[in-house]
């Protein structure tokens, strides 16, 4: 397993995605979402500043995490992605593990994911900027660039697929309320899942 890990790490370095320096601030609901700029797994540059006027969802993702698997194996995440990207939401899946672009794309394809783009947070820059703790953790940014939701995907913090059906989905609720011009009722929750793996900052 160690050798696989090293191999992956080497791939990740080879295709390292370099983020522009960021002012590191905590991602707090009601405040401007931390800026980001990077290249996704298809080579497209994604800047938060270019996404003004659109809702943006950030989904922290570790393919092997049992909590993430719960939402993909049930089809719940794909359904959410399809529903909201159809309403012009930009859905960015942030991969917090040392995969290559090809591996990440392959994994998302295998799961028939419907996200707008995927990128690999190889050096944990984005995780630090947003203080992401878990996979999955969800952030919703409104068209003005304000963070309007930070937390869990829903109110059932388990790995059990049977819990998807009865869960209250906070992301869908935040998007629905905000698009209707209402205040987001539940804007901050405790994210649940696997700990985001932080890679030591290179300085």
């Amino acid at each position, binding site marked *: 397993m160690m050798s696989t*890990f090293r191999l992956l790490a080497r791939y990740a370095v080879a295709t390292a995605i370099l983020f522009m320096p960021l002012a590191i601030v905590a991602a707090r609901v009601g405040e401007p979402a931390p800026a980001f700029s990077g290249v996704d797994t298809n080579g497209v540059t994604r800047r938060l500043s270019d996404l003004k006027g659109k809702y943006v969802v950030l989904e922290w993702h570790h393919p092997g995490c049992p909590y993430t698997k719960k939402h993909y194996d049930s089809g719940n995440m794909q359904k959410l992605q399809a529903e909201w990207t159809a309403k012009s939401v930009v859905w960015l899946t942030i991969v917090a593990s*040392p995969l290559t672009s090809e*591996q990440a794309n392959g*994994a998302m394809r295998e799961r028939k994911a419907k996200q707008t783009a995927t990128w690999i947070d190889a050096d944990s820059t984005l995780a630090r900027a947003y203080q992401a*703790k878990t996979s999955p953790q969800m952030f919703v940014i409104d068209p003005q660039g304000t963070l309007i939701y930070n937390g869990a995907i829903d109110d059932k913090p388990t790995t059990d697929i049977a819990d998807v059906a009865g869960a209250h989905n906070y992301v869908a609720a935040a998007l629905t309320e905000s698009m209707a011009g209402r205040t987001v009722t539940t804007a*901050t*929750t405790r994210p649940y899942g*696997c*700990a985001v*793996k932080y890679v030591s900052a290179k300085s």
Partner: protein
Amino acid sequence: MPDLRPVSTFFRPPNRPLTRRLRASVITATLGVALFTAAGTDAFATAEAPRLATTPQGSIELIAAAPVAPGDIWLGVRFRLEKRWHTYWRNPGDSGGPPTIRWTLPAGVSADPFVWPAPERIAVGPLVNYGYHGDLVLPVRLRGPAAALSKPFRIEAEIRWLVCKELCVPVRSRLALDVATLGVARTDAGGVDARTRQEWTRLIAAARRAEPRPAPTAWKATATADREHFTLTIQMDHPASSAVFFPLEESQVDDAAEQQVTVQGREMRLHLKTSDQLTAIPRILRGVLSLPSGEAVVIAAPVRSASVASTPRSSRRPS
């Protein structure tokens, strides 16, 4: 197609050909819901659930103490985790989740929640979890009419628990135990011998003794809070050099932040950063205070808001 991924390939890129995946000598079957379980942990295939299940990450076992009085039945869920693996306290901290249990009990009998010993702080990169390494017993008291508890009966339990190192494995274990209530001497009690039964009794008693006790009445705990910090002040009946605070509720205290402790005589003051997820200052800050002596005390400190209105927010934020 069933998911045949063994646990050890957690970091395996999912698009690797199936033929190259490890064919486990131990099958990790997926029950159609992709909740993969580790070797031998899953007893669903057999009609008779075992008392003990073993996984590559550790074992889980149902045990019972010899009753000190008829009808006074204490059970325990005993974990013996492999080196460096951990499972979680009732408040897991930044990630993870606590073990949960669903009992199948005789009519009229119910089970109390787990008794949780004080946890340890477990650093995972820059995050902190609250949990346990090594050996752990979570005692549970059964309740019910004396008539139901005074004769031998069988119980079953489905336990879902998450065990983590760098990676996490969710495990679902179905265990069963024949609870004999007539005393240690019965060799058929739970299908184990008297010596094992004594060992179980000792383990459960020790775990119950390790339960954090309510703060002595002589203690006084109060807290002040602003947007950034709780300051918890505890007047104790004896001096202690330091302490660790484990919040009972999630999303109040920043789990990963360093806890600054100052001691003056019998007064201890803890400076705790508030959680990013704190939406309203709680009226009471509850937690377990763990002291170097091994003592663990439950604290419930009324919280006074420290001049939230009088201090402009901008002045309290680092520039």
